[in-house]
């Protein structure tokens, strides 16, 4: 009996019970808010990309369209993607687009400001299948491309432009 109800044992049980209660008290509100802040997303094969693109541009189901555009282009040519420095949305859009642009090789340009004329002028158009602008203004001398929501534009480089 002594060993079962010694002060040490009581202190041991109280310590761990107290810790358990405190841990639950701190954790439950955080886990509850984390568990309830997200609505059920779509269950499609591209649901994560769709969610990212919708979050960044407002366009729904854009992944499939982007893949179609990239697949219609010559796979031996690169996709050039422009993103803005210090703009997390732009950077995220750029990487998501690069993800979807397979099997093309891609090149990501992170630029200051919103006008990529200087970088574009240095490129060899024969090696480029498309130029993607992520929250960046398309130079006026380039033909208009396919626009997805706000901030994402894909300009394919057809033969006549080259």
């Amino acid at each position, binding site marked *: 009996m002594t060993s079962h109800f010694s002060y040490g044992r009581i202190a041991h049980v109280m310590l761990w019970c107290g810790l358990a209660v405190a841990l639950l008290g701190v954790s439950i509100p955080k886990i509850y808010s984390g568990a309830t802040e997200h609505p059920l997303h779509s269950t499609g*094969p591209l649901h994560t990309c769709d969610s990212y693109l919708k979050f960044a541009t407002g366009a729904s189901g854009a992944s499939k369209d982007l893949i179609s555009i990239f697949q219609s282009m010559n796979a031996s040519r690169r996709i050039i993607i422009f993103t803005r420095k210090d703009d997390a949305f732009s950077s995220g859009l750029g990487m998501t687009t690069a993800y979807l642009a397979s099997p093309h090789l891609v090149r990501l340009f992170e630029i200051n400001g919103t006008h990529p004329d200087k970088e574009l002028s240095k490129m060899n158009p024969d090696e480029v299948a498309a130029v993607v602008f992520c929250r960046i203004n398309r130079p006026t001398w380039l033909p208009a491309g396919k626009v997805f929501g706000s901030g994402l534009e894909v300009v394919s480089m057809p033969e006549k432009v080259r």
Partner: protein
Amino acid sequence: MSALALLGAFGTLLVAGYGLLTLLVRQKIGLSLTEQIAFSWLLGTGAVSLLLWIFGLFVHGMLLPGLVSIVCLSLGFVGWRRTVPLPLRRTPNSFEIFLGIIIVIEIAILFYLSFVHTLGWDGLLNWEIKARYAFANGGVLPATYFSDSGRAFSHPEYPLAIPFTELWLYLWLGEANQFCAKTIFPIFYVVGTFLLVALGKRLTGRTWIGLLMAAFLFFVPQITVEVGSAIGGYADFPLSVFYLATIGCLFCAGEPKSDAFFRLYAAFLALLPWVKRDGVILWAVAAACGVFVILRTKRSPLFFLEFLPGLLIICGWHFYLSSMHALQPADFLPVNLETFGSHLYRIPPLLSAFLAEFYNHPTWSLFWFVVAIDLAYLLHRMGDPRVLVLLVALIVPIFLYLLIYVFSSWPSYLDHVGLSISRLLMHVAPVGFLVTTLAVSCRSEKNSARVREGGAVTCVTAGSERTPVVELA
């Protein structure tokens, strides 16, 4: 149809894992059903991803999943012929049933959370991307992927255990499906809880302590809902489960006649660097602990050969990346004494950042505070080599992780820390639960009668009543 395909994919993974488990255990020890499921899953994911990679060097297209399936089924046949014995079962008491119900509810919530959340940023762009590209290329990652500077953000140099487990699902599904890929991550959570239950019982001789620890795993926000948690498709939580299995088996291998546990330890150890690049650090720590156990238990030097598979995987992957002309990772400076010396000034701010993370209650709740109390509790048991191994496995990786930021090449190394520290600490968090298990049972273990439960001898010995020499001799 998708559900059937997923069942097929998971079934073959488990069958292959079970076959490997029977080969490693050789009917020498009894493993509970939860242990058998958990070990089978971990060995299965490791084996299938390795097979996809190795066979992919020679074949692609339909032949690749066909060959891997044949190997899985062959391993399953081996498992069927030499089943792992189950220990005697006893009727659970009402408290254990209550805890079991809590754990089932938690698992259900975690599955729900996994499905309502998207893949996390790294989950998509570091891990799933490899599965998708390999699937589109007949099961093999395109050579151009490794040298494409435009996709350097996706870390082509990262190992393939997680992406190729996702690839295995895709090959069964017949399409790359980001939604279905998420199913493997809550399964790792289930495996983590199963291991905590099983190891808790082995460490303390009491099922309820293991169940209690497994139930509390859910209440660490970093594991449940935070960025990089068990639901976001990151490799960090799976790595932590592999590490838990490694260290748990090593703890049990500290007992006499536990060679089967040592073989299991070696198998999980080998898979650590295959799950994530940081796994090399965990591999080094766990291997050092393994060397210590071999020496203390006076095992044959042949046991050192069991480190060979891990070395082969590390060197094989490194060689593969070189042959693919993979881009070098740009996150860290060259690791050498000169760089270390010139960046020593970073250590005090890094220590502060780590300490701040331990107090980060929204991310960790009181977990690290509890671990600190565990350490105080277990100080008097440091003479027990197995407890020492557990503490080293918990603490040393944290210091090594701190040291790697000394070599960070980010313009602001503290930003680098802030972005990844919580995920790195998660690698050792389940081992922290094992330490807590020991601390909670510390007083009751003084009663040696409790090391037996339900007629079955557990891995625990009343450590406080034995000298270390007796313990491991």
